[in-house]
């Protein structure tokens, strides 16, 4: 499925301002952006694991791809991630139950996805691959192990 569909689900949920709808919109917004990021990295030749550590791999790769816009998008993704954890696990009343904040999360995810999409051409993916390969090479030369090993 297309991860962007999660974003539409988040928007549909926000036709209601109920706390559960707002919290779930945070969750879907994060996973929409996260999965588009995973797709971009994998199409650039960098496999992301299918375990909980994948979140950290996405952070590591995007932070070290040597493309400033993607580094910024990654920091926004980290912000979405933190809100998603609050929305899913911290069930006391908080900002993740407010519709305006949930709409902000949806908008933020849209912007992150737009940024990822702007690097989806073959040429841009080559730049990403080159940046991450250079990072992996540096790590390997210092520690003897690859960051994804």
């Amino acid at each position, binding site marked *: 499925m297309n991860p962007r569909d999660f974003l539409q689900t988040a928007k549909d949920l926000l036709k209601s301002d109920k706390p559960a709808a707002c919290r779930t919109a945070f969750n879907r917004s994060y996973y929409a952006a996260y999965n588009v990021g995973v797709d971009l990295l994998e199409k650039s030749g960098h496999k992301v694991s299918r375990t*909980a*550590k994948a*979140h*950290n791999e996405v*952070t*590591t790769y995007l*932070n*070290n791809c040597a493309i*400033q816009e993607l*580094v*910024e998008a*990654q*920091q*926004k993704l*980290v*912000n979405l*991630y*933190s*809100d998603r*954890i*609050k929305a899913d*696990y911290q069930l006391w009343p908080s*900002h993740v139950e*407010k519709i*305006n*904040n949930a*709409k*902000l999360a949806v*908008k*933020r995810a849209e*912007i992150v996805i737009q940024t990822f999409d702007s690097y989806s051409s073959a040429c841009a993916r080559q730049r990403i691959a080159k940046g991450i390969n250079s990072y992996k090479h540096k790590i390997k030369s210092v520690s003897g192990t690859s960051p994804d090993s």
Partner: protein
Amino acid sequence: MSETISDEHITLKYFFLAESYNYAPKKPDRDLSEARSLIQEWTRIGTSPSNLETWLNEHKTPLRSLQKLLKELQPQLSDERQVEVKHSHEVIVFCADHSLIKYLGLVELLTKKYFPTVRKISFSVGYDPETVDKWVSVDIEISGDIDDAIEWEDNFVKEWVTSAAYPERTKFTLSCDII
């Protein structure tokens, strides 16, 4: 971790806020050079709570003079707006353990710089039960609309990723509460 966290630990945040003043337009430079040299001395011996205690014990006089200095600096460091800043003790311990103390000051400074309507900044430790990862959650209360918040966050993130080192910067997350 057995160390107790005193007001002095909290005060240390302001040492770093003072150092972070490089990022702001105003520079109270004469006094800051003294503060900076003391910060450098502390960071030279490490930044864990245990050697912080040692440092504080060994430098009673400089600490007192630094506290006096900080008191004098407070009006300059304080924003004209009334912004409430809250830290849990847990977050100070977490930051000391992970060499993140100086970034508390930077986050506070950049938040005040880029979110003109910020009323409250709360620092706490975020925790993911799935990965057991921890980070510093920076929760801010702002007034404004969604587009304002997006623009302010965008400007904040631009400076944050160029000012804070990797991987430390990924240990801070920003949450906006539009009120």
